[in-house]
């Protein structure tokens, strides 16, 4: 029986708990709170490894500078044989896993072998064999030279975890990494809590505890930043950003990402095989309008496929992609399309109608798709928008049913875009790249970049040449670039954003005051 006295006691206790909750939110030393949209969809490194590499719980053999140049990671040094077929990576001898065991070459090889299964990016490398040489050297033998290997070994799917992380059936049961932070609580799909790992062989981080929360809705993330609950809030929607900019307790920091919104075009279709039609589609797009009205950031209108932050690939000599409806109409007329009352028709009276597939995982994509639909209607092309799942585009590529696909492609998936470009524009095209289109000079330039066996000047020239060919032929039509915008609380300093999204760089941060 609940007496009145009990009720009062419980009430007082609840009030005290509530009060302490409120106080704790303002106390200076609660864990550093990060909130982002990325959920933990299983512990396998290919599924969610990026969550743990970003939190610096796990390490990859190599790291990368902002421009993609390889840096030492778990491997303190590495070299390539003269024929380019054998790579040797030597581990830091003092590296320890969070369970206290040393990081051995055998442990690393086990993880690398697991990362050779599709879709992990190492499956694209021409690897013949991965073996150990002593306790701390890993040798990777290739079938043919591949200069992108260091970049692939910086990808989160190749992160190294302790043998104790695996269950008896070979699946990953826990994340025992070797980074400066160790996991104290892991509740998939939403929550990870970390604390400093005392056995780390590098400098001790200033922030001792970190908490990552995956929150699916952008409104939630923005409000968490606004209330001071989140110290770093990722994945903010344009409308919330406008509101957050005015807040005194917050700063918004941003960085351009090597990611582009692209329109994948099935150039194998009779209507789209003519480059003039693809150019007309491109000229009809008001990129400035899309960037300003939908992304709220006019600088994001793409003038070419590669964003300026991809310095080696961004070709400053190229004329910018422009919005010119008159030119678009002229190009369509040249290609044999005539204006009828209900849109364009070809010589046989066939109407110009296309279907555009996109997906909502990135909230701006469906909105951009409808903007494109409206802009193309102006030049007489009827486009139907279908919003499905991100798998629909690769599926349509495979069965040939795709006509147009709108996606956000990350050319910095691994620090060197060569691998991604080979996937996209290699022979036969790619799931998120060319379809029904190929170019021999582009293929040659890419394979030289892949092998890496010509002079640095030639490689640099090849990159610019690739950008030029893609701009002239438009197998994919660039729409916009991306900027990572992060709301930052005033209680931390030393924040710098990683354009390759590999790390939150927690070890460089410290508390203010």
């Amino acid at each position, binding site marked *: 029986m609940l007496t009145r006295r009990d009720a009062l006691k419980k009430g007082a206790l609840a009030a005290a708990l509530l009060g302490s909750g409120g106080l704790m939110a303002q106390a200076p030393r609660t864990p550093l709170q990060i909130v982002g949209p990325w959920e933990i969809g299983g512990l396998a490194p290919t599924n969610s490894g990026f969550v743990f590499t970003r939190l610096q719980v796990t390490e990859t053999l190599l790291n990368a500078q902002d421009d993609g140049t390889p840096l030492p990671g778990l491997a303190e040094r590495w070299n390539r044989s003269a024929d380019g077929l054998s790579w040797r990576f030597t581990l830091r001898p003092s590296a320890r896993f969070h369970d206290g065991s040393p990081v051995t070459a055998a442990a690393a090889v086990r993880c690398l072998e697991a990362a050779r299964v599709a879709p992990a990016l190492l499956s694209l490398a021409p690897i013949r064999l991965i073996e150990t040489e002593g306790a701390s050297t890993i040798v990777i033998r290739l079938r043919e030279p591949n200069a992108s290997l260091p970049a692939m070994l910086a990808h989160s799917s190749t992160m190294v975890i302790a043998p104790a992380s695996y269950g008896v059936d070979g699946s990953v049961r826990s994340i025992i990494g070797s980074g400066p932070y160790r996991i104290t609580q892991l509740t998939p799909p939403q929550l990870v809590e970390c604390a400093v790992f005392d056995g780390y062989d590098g400098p001790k981080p200033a922030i001792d505890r970190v908490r990552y929360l995956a929150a699916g809705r952008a*409104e939630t993330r923005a409000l968490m930043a606004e209330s001071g609950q989140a110290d770093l809030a990722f994945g903010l929607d344009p409308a919330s950003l406008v509101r957050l900019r005015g807040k005194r307790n917050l700063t918004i920091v941003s960085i351009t990402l090597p990611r582009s919104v692209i329109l994948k075009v099935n150039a194998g279709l009779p209507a789209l095989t003519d480059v003039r039609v693809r150019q007309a589609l491109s000229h009809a797009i008001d990129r400035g309008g899309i960037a300003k009205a939908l992304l709220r950031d006019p600088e994001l209108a793409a003038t070419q496929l590669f964003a300026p932050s991809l310095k080696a690939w961004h070709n400053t000599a190229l004329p910018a992609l422009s919005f010119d409806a008159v030119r678009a109409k002229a190009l369509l007329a040249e290609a044999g399309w005539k204006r009828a009352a209900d849109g364009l028709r070809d010589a046989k009276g066939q109407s110009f109608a296309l279907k555009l597939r996109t997906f909502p995982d990135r909230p701006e994509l469906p909105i951009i798709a409808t903007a494109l639909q409206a802009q193309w209607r102006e030049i007489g092309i009827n486009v139907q928008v279908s919003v499905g799942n991100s798998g629909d585009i690769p599926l349509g590529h495979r069965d040939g049913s795709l006509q147009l696909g709108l996606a956000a492609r990350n050319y910095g998936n691994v620090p060197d875009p060569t691998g991604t470009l080979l996937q996209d524009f290699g022979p036969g095209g790619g799931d998120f790249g060319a379809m029904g289109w190929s170019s021999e000079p582009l293929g040659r330039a890419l394979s030289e970049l892949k092998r890496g066996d010509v002079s640095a000047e030639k490689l640099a020239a090849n990159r610019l040449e690739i950008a030029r060919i893609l701009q002239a032929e438009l197998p994919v039509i660039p729409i916009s670039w991306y900027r990572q915008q992060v709301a930052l609380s005033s209680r931390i300093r030393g924040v710098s954003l990683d354009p390759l999204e590999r790390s939150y760089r927690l070890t460089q941060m410290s508390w203010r005051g």
Partner: protein
Amino acid sequence: MGVGWSPWTALMLRRAFQVLALAVLIGTVCFFIARSLPGDMAMRIAAGRYGYDLVSGAAADAVRTELGLNQPLLVALLQWLRDVVSFDLGVSLISGRSVLGEVVEQLGATLVLALTAVLMAAAIGLPLGVWSGLHPGGWVDRITLGLAVVLRATPSFLLAVTLMLVVAVKLGALPVAGDANAGGIILPALTLALGLGAGLARVTRSAVLDALASPAYEFARSKGLSDRQALLRHGARLAALPVVAYLGVHAVFLFEGAVIVESLFAWPGIGHELVHAVFGRDVPMLQGTALCMAIVFVLFNLLIDAVCLALDPRQRIGGRS
């Protein structure tokens, strides 16, 4: 139900049969729905597992081989049914974790949220409803009516964001989302509780009014009991019946509302998981989640029936005759 069984046994047997029938029905329906959704299943699972940066034809092929998605429909269905009988709900196609483990964890989180919401709703709705019933037409009654209309008409999404803005951002009293230790449950539970509490207040009001007007109450008064005694001993029990029945029906809406509330407040519950399972074509997860939710509904209804049976002697006598 059969002659000779006590009303309690009859109730238990009826519900046990329902659980079995539901399990088979829901599992089968989920299976066919998931299989007949448009799009390629392997590709959807690959997209769910690896995200839009890594999903590719090669990834889908790997998934197809790994999960044996090429096996005939009937074989896959029979296998699932056989596993269910041995209490094995399989592993999630996306995360690779045991479905039972995930569901128990997440259903637990949702139950905690739903129960907190029911308690809050009762704390808000019952006193207001009783007071309004005892003083119909008074200012409490009128204000409650106005509030009930507004709260029932406000979508939970709007209510949630408003609460976040006012309580968490402006007052700084509670975390916006996702902090279960520091009172993070209060806002999501309140979002669910306000709507439920508003309805509860109105139902309680009418129930109290009806009870006061009933011959039983009148008899209790005429045999000399004071207002207070008559209300507590006779009126309360009579009025409780429709209120309990209302709660039973609305628990369903609570789960429905939880889907939105959970994703907004980043609450690791089952509604959130169900949505993900649908998007990712995670059939075992979908079947397991739907099955466990259905069982919870049946059990909850059982509880409500039992409470009604305990409250209402007429039902017990009716069952025996």
